[in-house]
């Protein structure tokens, strides 16, 4: 271990477990399990049919092998596809929610009770396969905004869900999206009607607690004409020796003049120093800019998970629509990340911006994979891509796979890439000014990620920066 590496290894702070009895579906996956999940969620018949169709298609598919990550085969029959904290009856208000669950979220920094909850941020708290509580539902309803756990939305707003579900990520899209479509349990549903600017930040916090389970959440956000919304998700899980699968699907739809800002601070358990345990974070996130002048912006800070596989993308269909992707991906120890974005330009004068910052430490592998596709119809399209990699120590790897496909000669494409190393000289320079080596690393990394951090909602920018500092602590020295 060189000097620098000694500064990046530190324990995962959210790795504790809530001692709560959970009710699980029998292990394994078959049509009966899917029926069970659907019944638990009291879903209408069409929803079950949709799931079964996805499942039958999934059976014909094979797991992708193209990502630049390595892991032993996943036994899909060894996973519990549904786990929920046991409760006698369904809580109808916060007072009826098991205090252990409220305490769990409070400990994670997400207080849900009336007195303590974050002002200005509405939170949906998801524990294993169920939503525990959603705050500010009433206030949002007054503004016309629907913010509900997905399973409630299916029951209460079936027409909206049916209209948009699977319209951006079809059930057949890819192996993990198909699996998610078959077994998804909870997640958030957001609908912002025409002309409404959502009055507060919306946020969902996902917590995996039960053993041998997977979490398969589904999120759907719709912004009608002229509407706008900013949404943030956070997540964590206990430390376990087993790998747990998290296969989510997120779909965003923006109509004319609408804008959606979607931010992620991902801190799933990354596994131990030798790579034992940790979450497999295999996620499909995609937004459709359907309307003219619509905008979808993804910001992600990825620090956790043993393996990350996700490409939040934008389909720029409406003329003048804008897609953005700002990403910080940090890997340490044995973590592997293969992440990036796809920007598909279909409409005229569509514009996309990609800013990706990869930081690798320890013996980790960090890959940026991005595609920019300019279709024939996309007259006057523009893309700006910037991919920067930073290496800490000499045992890690940074990889960049940019795919560019231009079919309209009026397109303007810019691509910049850089690779840098936190050098002994940079650290020494800070030390010579009185700053400790660990603090120097945090500072250098924060400076490197600045363009991404400033895209985060203010409430979370500081948290993200701290998270990064903790995650890299111990890897230099």
């Amino acid at each position, binding site marked *: 271990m060189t000097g620098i590496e000694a500064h990046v290894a530190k324990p995962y702070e959210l790795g504790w477990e809530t001692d709560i009895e959970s009710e699980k579906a029998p292990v394994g996956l078959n049509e009966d399990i899917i029926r069970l999940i659907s019944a638990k969620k009291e879903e209408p018949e069409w929803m079950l049919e949709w799931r079964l169709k996805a499942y039958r298609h999934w059976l014909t598919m094979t797991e992708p092998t193209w990502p630049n990550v390595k892991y032993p085969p996943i036994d899909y029959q060894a996973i519990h596809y549904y786990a929920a904290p046991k409760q006698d009856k369904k809580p109808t208000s916060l007072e009826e929610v098991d205090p252990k669950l409220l305490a769990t979220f409070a400990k994670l920094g997400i207080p849900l009770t009336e007195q303590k909850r974050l002002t200005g941020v509405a939170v949906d708290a998801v524990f294993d396969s169920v939503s525990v509580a959603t705050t500010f539902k009433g206030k949002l309803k007054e503004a016309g905004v629907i913010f509900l756990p997905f399973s409630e939305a299916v029951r209460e707003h079936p027409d909206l869900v049916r209209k948009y579900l699977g319209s951006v990520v079809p059930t057949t899209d890819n192996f993990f999206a198909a699996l998610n479509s078959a077994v998804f349990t909870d997640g958030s549903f957001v609908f912002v009607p025409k002309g409404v600017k959502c009055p507060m930040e919306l946020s969902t916090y996902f917590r995996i607690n039960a053993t041998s389970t997977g979490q398969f959440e589904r999120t759907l956000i719709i912004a009608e004409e002229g509407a706008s919304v900013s949404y943030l998700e956070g997540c964590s899980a206990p430390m376990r020796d087993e790998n747990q699968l998290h296969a989510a699907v997120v779909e965003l739809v923006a109509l004319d003049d609408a804008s959606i800002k979607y931010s992620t601070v991902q801190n799933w358990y990354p596994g131990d120093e030798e790579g034992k345990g940790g979450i497999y974070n295999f996620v499909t996130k995609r937004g459709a800019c359907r309307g003219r002048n619509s905008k979808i912006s993804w910001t992600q800070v990825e620090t956790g998970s043993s393996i990350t596989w996700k490409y939040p993308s934008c389909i720029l269909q409406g003329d003048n629509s804008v897609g953005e992707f700002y990403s910080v991906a940090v890997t340490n120890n044995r973590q592997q990340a293969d992440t990036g974005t796809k920007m598909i330009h279909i409409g005229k004068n569509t514009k996309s911006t990609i800013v990706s910052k990869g930081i690798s430490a320890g013996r980790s592998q960090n890959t940026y994979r991005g595609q920019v596709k300019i279709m024939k119809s996309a007259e006057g399209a523009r893309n700006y891509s910037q991919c920067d990699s930073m290496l800490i120590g000499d045992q890690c790897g940074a990889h960049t796979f940019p795919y560019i496909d231009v079919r309209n000669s009026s397109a303007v494409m810019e691509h910049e890439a850089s690779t840098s190393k936190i050098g002994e000289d940079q650290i020494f320079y800070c030390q*010579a*000014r*009185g700053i400790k080596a660990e603090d120097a690393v945090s500072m250098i990394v*924060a*400076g490197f990620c600045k363009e991404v951090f400033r895209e985060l909602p203010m409430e979370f920018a500081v948290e993200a920066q701290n998270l990064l500092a903790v995650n890299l602590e111990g890897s230099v020295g």
Partner: protein
Amino acid sequence: MLDIKNLHASVEGTEILHGVNLKVGKGEVHAIMGPNGSGKSTLAQVLAGHPAYEVTEGTVALAGADLLDMSPEERAQAGVFMAFQYPVEIRGITNAYFLRAAVNAVRKARGEPEYDTIDFLDVLDEKLKVIGWEDTFLTRAVNEGFSGGEKKRNEIIQMAVLEPKLAILDETDSGLDIDALKLVAEAVNTLRAPDRSMVIVTHYQRLLNYITPDYVHVLHNGRIVRSGGKELAHELEAKGYDWLRQEAAVAG
């Protein structure tokens, strides 16, 4: 203030300093001159604690404390400042932020309260007034996209803000045109103080036209071979460094 005795130091197993002896009193300004490869920069780096240099023999005392026993940040906290010959860039971090981090790290180590952002701007203002420079540097990222001259000036700003007890200027004049050189020298002069010692490492005499040292030492082959007053610098300028080699050859 600074007492170096029989200092031997090597880099990657090759000894560069072969027994340096040097005493710098409180408030004194010493110039270390010498040809390329004489060990001048090595001496500066060793004093600042660069990890690539290994001290194999000798002692260095700073106001009686064992300097070699301290980490680089402890040295800075104890009042040592080195103006780098090649200042490093730190992308995305403004000079103002960097300076506050540095000042607060030093204050924290000394048990003094840290400055918040607003208070610190006042402190900065005041320090910049001393050297009479504009604050346009402060909002730019640390040395990022700076010209050679700007980088050197930035080092002096840091020195002004950190108020060291011992300032080591490592080839601060290299890469400066005459106007920039004057500007830097004037600032350094205003920072001379009865409780601040300076060690100015330079190849050329020209910096010493503007900063008048109390003592001049000539470093050659890792040893101080000649010490004298400021006139020694002029002698070197007139004669070059060749005579040193001849003397060394005669002596050898």
